[in-house]
């Protein structure tokens, strides 16, 4: 299809000739994010500021061309994929930290700022930005806000929506608005809260005001081994049930630990059925008391080989193993299909055993590495893309795992979003009336449907996502 030459020229006039990409070879680079399915855009536009974003969206609105905002392309549900073609609105030129206010403990950033860059800049003021997706070395704050991203430390600190104070957004007609801001209890509807997590289907985000938190004076990180994934799951419930909410409570199964240890040599016990990584922070009295209580509870639940990080570099190594776990899985199979579902925490043993059985049934290795404290599981189905016969099994196994999550009272996604990947499954958890309520919001803010069409809502025209476009190798993916 492609865009008419006149449209390309309009876009070039809006952002500068060199900031519009329209040759088919170059466009292929932008056809994917970190999910399963790809589709090339008709043009990639790289605006420098809000006015240019607005101009681009106005051109798109005039010609009824889809617009898909895109940050680092690290999303795992296809949010940044131009499934209906159109314009990929690449915001990575807008990557300035505009302000860090150490008194108000806030930061104002452009959408292309990388998550970890913000925390590094904030650290100069003894502050940090709490949501920490495993992709934080690459993913952008704009993408985080669009997807309402999580991360290991969201157990205690909450997800992105709990930390966004306000945003400047461009709506589907190109109009620019500030939603919310520094003051609490805004008058009127919480537009900001509705737009965070709307996956680019309601607006493009051009500035984000976020809350920063004081860096805790003391952090304690503990690794504990368990004979089985079930005993580790029970230990998680026991910790929380004792009234302790750690800053992070992560689990890795034996498959994952083996790959991680071979790669990082972080001292993970490879004989264990599962390991837990537990972190508490606060003042020293608090972390030592909590850690002592946690050790007791873990011990009562068959935890062994407990090892607490003695230095910041030991802590970093333990976390490097966790955050780099999925990349390390490339040692087992070159490709992975990473799922994201949430169950009530007490159902972890059931869902993990169901996931294991599904893997056995389809003869596919499955590696689990996830946010146990939140009940947010991430089964990775490992396979080799070159073996095309296995594709249907990988897809069916993933769907069955998600089905099991829903049957246990869970949610389709805890932090990766619905995007393309799970839109067909939305009716599993929402009634037609529930989905109709979401459609009303979409209709009120983007009646013409130009913002990221084909996402979130079930699309009868869209077949199930398939692996044909999947070319990335797990070993390249260092951050999940």
């Amino acid at each position: 299809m492609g865009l008419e030459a006149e449209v390309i020229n309009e876009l070039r006039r809006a952002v500068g000739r060199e900031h519009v990409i329209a040759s088919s070879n170059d466009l292929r680079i932008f056809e994917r994010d970190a999910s399963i399915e790809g589709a090339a855009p008709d043009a990639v536009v790289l605006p420098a500021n809000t006015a240019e974003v607005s101009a681009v969206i106005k051109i798109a609105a005039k010609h009824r061309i889809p617009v898909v905002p895109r940050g680092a392309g690290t999303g795992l549900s296809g949010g940044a994929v131009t499934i209906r073609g159109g314009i990929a609105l690449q915001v990575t030129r807008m990557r300035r930290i505009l302000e860090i206010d150490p008194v108000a403990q806030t930061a104002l950033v452009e959408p292309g700022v990388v998550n970890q860059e913000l925390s590094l800049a904030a650290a100069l003021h003894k502050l940090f930005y709490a949501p920490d997706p495993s992709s934080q070395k690459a993913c952008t704050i704009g993408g985080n806000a669009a997807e309402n991203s999580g991360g290991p430390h969201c157990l205690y600190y909450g997800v992105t929506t709990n930390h966004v104070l306000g945003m400047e957004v461009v709506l589907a007609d190109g109009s620019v608005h500030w939603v919310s801001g520094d003051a609490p209890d805004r008058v009127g509807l919480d537009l900001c809260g509705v737009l965070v997590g709307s996956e680019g289907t309601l607006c493009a985000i051009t500035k984000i005001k976020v809350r920063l938190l004081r860096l805790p004076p003391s952090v304690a990180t503990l690794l504990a081994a368990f004979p089985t994934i079930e005993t580790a799951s029970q230990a998680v419930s026991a910790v929380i049930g004792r009234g302790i909410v750690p800053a992070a409570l992560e689990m890795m199964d034996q498959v994952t630990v083996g790959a991680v240890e071979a790669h990082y040599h972080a001292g993970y016990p490879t004989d264990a059925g599962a390991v837990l990584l537990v972190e508490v922070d606060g003042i020293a009295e608090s972390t030592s008391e909590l850690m002592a209580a946690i050790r007791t509870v873990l011990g009562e639940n068959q935890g062994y080989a407990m090892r607490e990080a003695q230095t910041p570099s030991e802590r970093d190594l333990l976390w490097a193993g966790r955050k780099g776990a999925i990349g390390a899985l490339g040692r087992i199979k070159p490709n992975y299909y990473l799922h994201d579902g949430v169950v009530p925490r007490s159902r972890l043993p059931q869902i993990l055993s169901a996931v294991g059985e599904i893997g056995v049934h389809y003869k596919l290795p499955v590696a689990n590495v996830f946010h146990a404290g939140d009940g947010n599981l991430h089964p990775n189905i490992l396979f080799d893309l070159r073996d095309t016969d296995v594709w249907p099994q990988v897809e069916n196994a993933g769907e069955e795992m998600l089905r099991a999550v829903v049957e246990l009272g869970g949610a389709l996604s805890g932090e990766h979003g619905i995007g393309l990947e799970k839109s067909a499954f939305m009716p599993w958890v929402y009634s037609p009336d529930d989905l109709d309520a979401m459609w009303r919001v979409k209709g009120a803010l983007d009646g013409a449907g130009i913002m990221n069409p084909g996402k979130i809502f079930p699309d009868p025209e869209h077949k199930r996502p398939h692996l044909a476009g999947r070319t990335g190798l797990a070993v390249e993916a260092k951050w999940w």
Partner: protein
Amino acid sequence: MVVTSRTVEKPATAEEVARLLHEAAEAGHAVFPVGGGRATQMGDPASRDGIEIRTTALDRVLERSQADMVVSVEAGITLESLQAELGKGGQFLPLDPFNSPGHTIGGLLATGWTGPLRLRFGSPRDFLIGIRVALPDGRLATAGGRVVKNVSGYDLMKLHYGALGTMGVIVAASFKVFPKALHDASVEATHESMDQAWAAAEQALAMPMAPAALELFSTGRVLARFLGSPDATRRMVAELGWSEANGSVWTEHAKSAPSLWARIAAPRHQLRSVLDELQVDQQWWASPGTGIANWAISGSTDEVRSIRALATAAGGSLVLMAGPDDFRHDVGAWGTPPATLHLMRRLRYAFDPNQVINPGRFVV
């Protein structure tokens, strides 16, 4: 026109709420959802008469899972009943609104009323994980779920929180709940000058373990609450050096409910500059860590307008929480509408095109 008489309905099921709402909408009547009736003077006086739907018969706990730290309730349950239920398992909902007791959960979500614990735990906006509402077309729509982390589709909980029921009548909600702290200590001090009192508040807020609640009063009193492990809490109390207070001070404080009452919100480091402009005889209390103050107005409407102008200039607001109809009519409950009002109206229109629910009361 001030509403004086209404038909009252007390539905016992969510389906009945939806049916009543739909029938009212079809007949062209307005509907006024009421929970515990603790915030009936919030907002502008209603623009027309109609049917009052009291949710107090919807008072069941639908599901409580101790291990999952999640609870689902019907909207008409009172906060006190819910806390009693959660307390059986050593848990609680960190919500301590003023004008207590008697708030219902639905009312608290619709009004967005909070209390001192917001400093540590945030507002229900942060721990509401699911909601069910009745819509004027008779449908029941659910958003979110019963898990603590969920990005499946739009976050419509945000659409209803603080919307004064205008986007749908809340019939049920699910929350992430919290374990009761291992140790709970309260301390207080009273200072001669407000300068000293503000300095004391800032000192407490800067402690290495921040207080879970910190309230400052126009009398020069400061009241702080620390939640945490015993050693950590004791260290904070010792370092601060204020006198220990009985935990019941918070229950007493939560009863605060001036008959003429405004909530002032500002970016937290600018709250003082607004409050400093109040006449010295005015009574107020504030949460300097969150940027919210409550003012027991005894001044003139002109003083309310001038303080509102200051709060608005700082990026904040002054909203009337209670007061006679004529006073609210005169001053306006909400102040200058936000610049995005037209977007909010589009959303409201999509859910309630004929303004059946709470007509005239909300800013949108």
